[in-house]
């Protein structure tokens, strides 16, 4: 079941199509990630979906609602964490929480959320005095007060230290376990790989990839590199007796074998063993989402 349906969404700023005819669906209960370089249109897309921005063309449907028309109903069902939001000067944690609680008809009691996120000792602290990680926890708490079906997280972990980032990941996983759908944007590939069931990569307002992380890496055509050292010259063996090798390089004793086929590693090792060729420092480098992302972004630049 789709909880978000975006069809041909287009948002124009002046003469620039910040979001250019993008279409995708988000299924109930999945963590959907949107990746892209700065200025690609991630935030604009989120803001169109949650009704903060008007759009020129396209249809957006969030839990069956039109975000531009059914504002009130929508904000009772979604929770949002916006990029770079700050809070009022000199406001205390419990004040901002009770303020947000008063906005909703059936709020989730904020005290429970404060407990869960370990901010109990900070209830009477000024928000200004919280650490970056604590502020982001507060942002999630505020996003969860409506007890939302869908949680929107715009660059939740940008600027956080590794420990705080790990904490956030844990909380996002828990949102999914609670049966909520998560729509997130991020700059961090390892974050997308770890959290997202499906991702979409956008560049200059257009979707250039939309699938699971694994499928996107596979379909990118990037090759696995098998690196090892051997005393013997085995160029002939590599050229003639090993299948699925797209190319290999030799630098003195060091060999790098390139292939898109995962079985090559086993066959290579089998071959070396049966021919009694001694080898060492065997290493394998699979293409990561990072590599894939950079390749996709570059390709699209060349085309343009």
């Amino acid at each position, binding site marked *: 079941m789709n909880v978000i349906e975006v069809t041909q969404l287009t948002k124009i700023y002046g003469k620039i199509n910040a979001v250019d005819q993008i279409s995708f669906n988000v299924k109930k209960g999945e963590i959907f990630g949107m990746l892209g370089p700065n200025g690609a249109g991630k935030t604009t897309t989120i803001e169109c979906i949650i009704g903060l921005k008007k759009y020129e063309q396209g249809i957006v449907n969030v839990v069956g609602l039109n975000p531009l028309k059914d504002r009130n109903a929508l904000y009772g069902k979604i929770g949002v964490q916006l990029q770079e*939001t700050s809070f009022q*000067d000199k406001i205390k944690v419990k004040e901002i929480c*009770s*303020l947000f609680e008063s906005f909703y008809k059936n709020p989730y009691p904020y005290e429970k959320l404060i407990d869960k996120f370990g901010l109990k000792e900070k209830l009477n602290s000024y928000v200004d005095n919280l650490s970056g990680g604590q502020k982001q926890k507060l942002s999630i708490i505020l996003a969860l007060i409506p007890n939302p079906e869908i949680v929107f997280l715009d660059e939740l972990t940008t600027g956080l230290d590794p420990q705080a980032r790990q904490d956030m990941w844990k909380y996002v996983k828990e949102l999914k376990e609670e049966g909520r759908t998560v729509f997130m944007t991020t700059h961090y590939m390892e974050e997308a790989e770890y959290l997202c069931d499906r991702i979409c990569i956008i560049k200059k307002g257009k979707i250039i990839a939309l699938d699971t992380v694994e499928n996107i890496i596979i379909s990118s055509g990037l090759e696995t590199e098998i690196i090892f050292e051997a005393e013997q010259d085995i160029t002939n063996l590599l050229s003639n007796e090993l299948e699925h090798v797209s190319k290999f390089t030799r630098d003195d004793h060091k060999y790098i074998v390139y292939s898109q086929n995962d079985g090559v590693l086993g066959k290579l090792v089998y071959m070396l063993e049966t021919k009694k060729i001694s080898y060492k420092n065997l290493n394998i480098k699979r293409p990561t989402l990072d590599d894939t992302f950079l390749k996709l972004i570059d390709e699209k630049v060349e085309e343009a």
Partner: protein
Amino acid sequence: MNRLVNISKIEFKLLTRNFMNIFFALVFPSMMLLLFGSIYGNEPSAFYGGHNMVDVSVPGYIGLIVAVTGLMTLPLTVAQYRERKILKRFAATPINPVDILISQVIVNFIMTLLGIALLIVIGKIVFDLHFFGNLFVVTFAFILTTFSIFSVGLVIAGVSANAKAATAISYIVYFPMIFLSGAIMPMEIMPKIIVYISKVFPLTYGTELLKGVWTGGKLSSYSPDIIVLLTISIICTLLATKFFRWE
């Protein structure tokens, strides 16, 4: 309605936690009263048309307080909330974002009332302040003045690109206005040229009206002031509604 009360409660707390707001709305006007009151005393003076200096100054200082809350605190807070995307965050909740603006008007109005209360108490205790007007008439004059000055503040909040610009515009509007509108210094001592210049400031009409009705003048004698204040209120409210940006 409940939401609005809630927002206003919290926003009022925040207002009182900022030293500058407390100082300019409560302390500063009372200091002016104590300072000028002790210099000139509260004896009848021909200069003030037979009225006492303090009795004429207090309604002027009321104008001063309205200018602080309406032209400084109100627009600066709203511009800051916009710049820091606080308004945007509120826009992503079921509340009507207009409630945020209304709550700012409410809390600044309450702050204004507190400033006036303090001023009157000090005036009464220290200088035996007199009130010659009709309470309803003065209340009307006060509300009209406040509405008109606050609407100017909302225009400043609406058109300024960021908090810095709002600060600059507020200072440019606020300082000449408090000194040249009769709020702090009586118009009676001003050279003719300043009196002409003062006509561009909305507050001039407010202080003239407040001083007039405070000292027993009839509303009808101040209809030009009332018309100007009403016109400013209507135009500025329309402008603010038209030009206000949430981001």
